């Protein structure tokens, strides 16, 4: 049995919120550099250059890369040997988000009632929290603040098994084309296949947060990742939607077993600011 104090959880989540919104992940930065060198359109090249300069500026000044500092998604992986003391775990997470968004000068973008009142909660809570129990005594926190310019462009479809691989490809391409300039390309894309209506969206999010350049362990899915990324970059949408080679930096796929009658597919779209920052306590 290992004890984890709520005050340490608060402090960790606060720091992760601030760092995740100000420091562009290294894999994204390197991918921008590579794509910049390959891009030949003037406006396309310039746009990618601006994104890199913007990331440098944000990091140096510790200010948000983008004004949409998102809703705070918090993923907790908790070992079953862990004992949490000094308060409620959920409240500790909310407090960490509250303090992070306040002290980091991050934008508070959450409204209480989604349909009728839409009044800003003024501290960016509630966070969206996911808990996963595992063996052992680990306590892992991932904070992934996500903006809604791209979140609004994500889609899910319950395909039929007979739709096959072509059905998956067509749906992914439809989502990317619908998103176009709205999602602030270059995009980072996660595709979930399998599971259920809810599970598949989690898979897509997980895929979206996987490092650029990593592949699905099954070679068939790995090939599909490459094929789709190539097709997406042939659409010509380009950086900022102004036309060019770089519409997406990556496309990752995550899969899960599913029902004999179904083949759910979800596409999670993110802009290049694919924020996620992790820590172990």
């Amino acid at each position, binding site marked *: 049995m290992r004890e984890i104090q709520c005050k340490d959880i608060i402090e960790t989540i606060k720091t992760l919120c601030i760092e995740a919104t100000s420091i562009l992940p290294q894999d994204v930065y390197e991918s921008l550099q590579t794509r910049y060198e390959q891009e030949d*359109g003037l*406006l*396309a090249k310039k*746009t990618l250059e*601006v*994104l890199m*300069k*913007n990331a440098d*500026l*944000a990091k140096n*000044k510790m*200010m*948000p*890369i*983008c*004004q*949409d*500092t998102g809703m705070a998604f918090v993923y907790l992986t908790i070992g079953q040997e862990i004992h949490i003391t000094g308060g409620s775990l959920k409240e500790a997470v909310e407090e960490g988000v509250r303090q992070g968004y306040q002290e980091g*000068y*991050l*934008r*508070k*973008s959450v409204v209480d009632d989604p349909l009728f009142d*839409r009044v*800003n909660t*003024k501290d960016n809570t509630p966070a969206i929290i996911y808990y996963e129990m595992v063996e052992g005594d680990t306590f892992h926190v991932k904070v992934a603040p996500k903006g809604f*310019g791209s979140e*609004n462009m994500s889609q899910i479809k319950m395909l039929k098994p007979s739709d096959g691989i072509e059905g998956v490809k067509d749906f992914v391409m439809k989502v990317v084309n619908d998103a*176009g*300039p*709205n*999602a*602030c390309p270059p995009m980072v894309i996660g595709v979930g296949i399998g599971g259920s209506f809810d599970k598949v969206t989690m898979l897509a999010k997980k895929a979206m947060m996987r490092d650029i350049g990593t592949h699905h362990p099954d070679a068939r899915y790995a090939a599909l990742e490459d094929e789709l990324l190539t097709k997406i970059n*042939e*659409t*010509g*949408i*380009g950086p*900022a*939607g*102004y*036309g*060019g*080679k770089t519409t997406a930096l990556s496309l990752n796929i995550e899969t899960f077993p599913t029902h004999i009658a179904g083949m759910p597919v979800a596409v999670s779209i993110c*802009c*290049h*600011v694919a924020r996620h920052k992790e820590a172990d306590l």
Partner: protein
Amino acid sequence: MIELQTPLTVEKIRQLHAGDEVTLSGTIYTGRDAAHKRLIALLDERKPLPFDIQDQTIFYVGPTPNRPGSVFGSGGPTTSGRMDAYSPRLISLGLRAMIGKGYRNEDVKQAIMTYGGVYFGAIGGAGAMMSSCIEECEIIAFEDLGPEAIRKLKVKNMPLVVVIDSQGNDLYEIGRKNYLNKK
């Protein structure tokens, strides 16, 4: 690079073409979803708007809070399509330019052509850099909306691209076509 100074008259914006790079200087206003909803409500109630929109520019942005000693936080464009429901009416009343990112619908394009307007794109996701073009910032309406309050900004050399010009040409269509033709 074309240098533009606000207020933007019809004559000035008629010279612009989709794909042109411009820098914008002068006074502009911020406004996004909730502020637009309220502007339209004021018009419905036949009440005056918080600022005279003739020849003015609205920047679709909800900035992060500024740190002490700085004028503006991070502030790149938000998705313009969410303002499509409100923009044609404002354009018909004299609004000249909009700054945002993403597709506009046919109603907005039609209003831009009919009344003489322009839609500028700012680079989505480059919020930290945009703040360096902003010299002054003052909340002039709907302060309770927080990041969505209407701010009056004084900007200098804000880098923008003409996405939809007064003839209705759309860079999102042209840029993509040009790229595909080149291949």
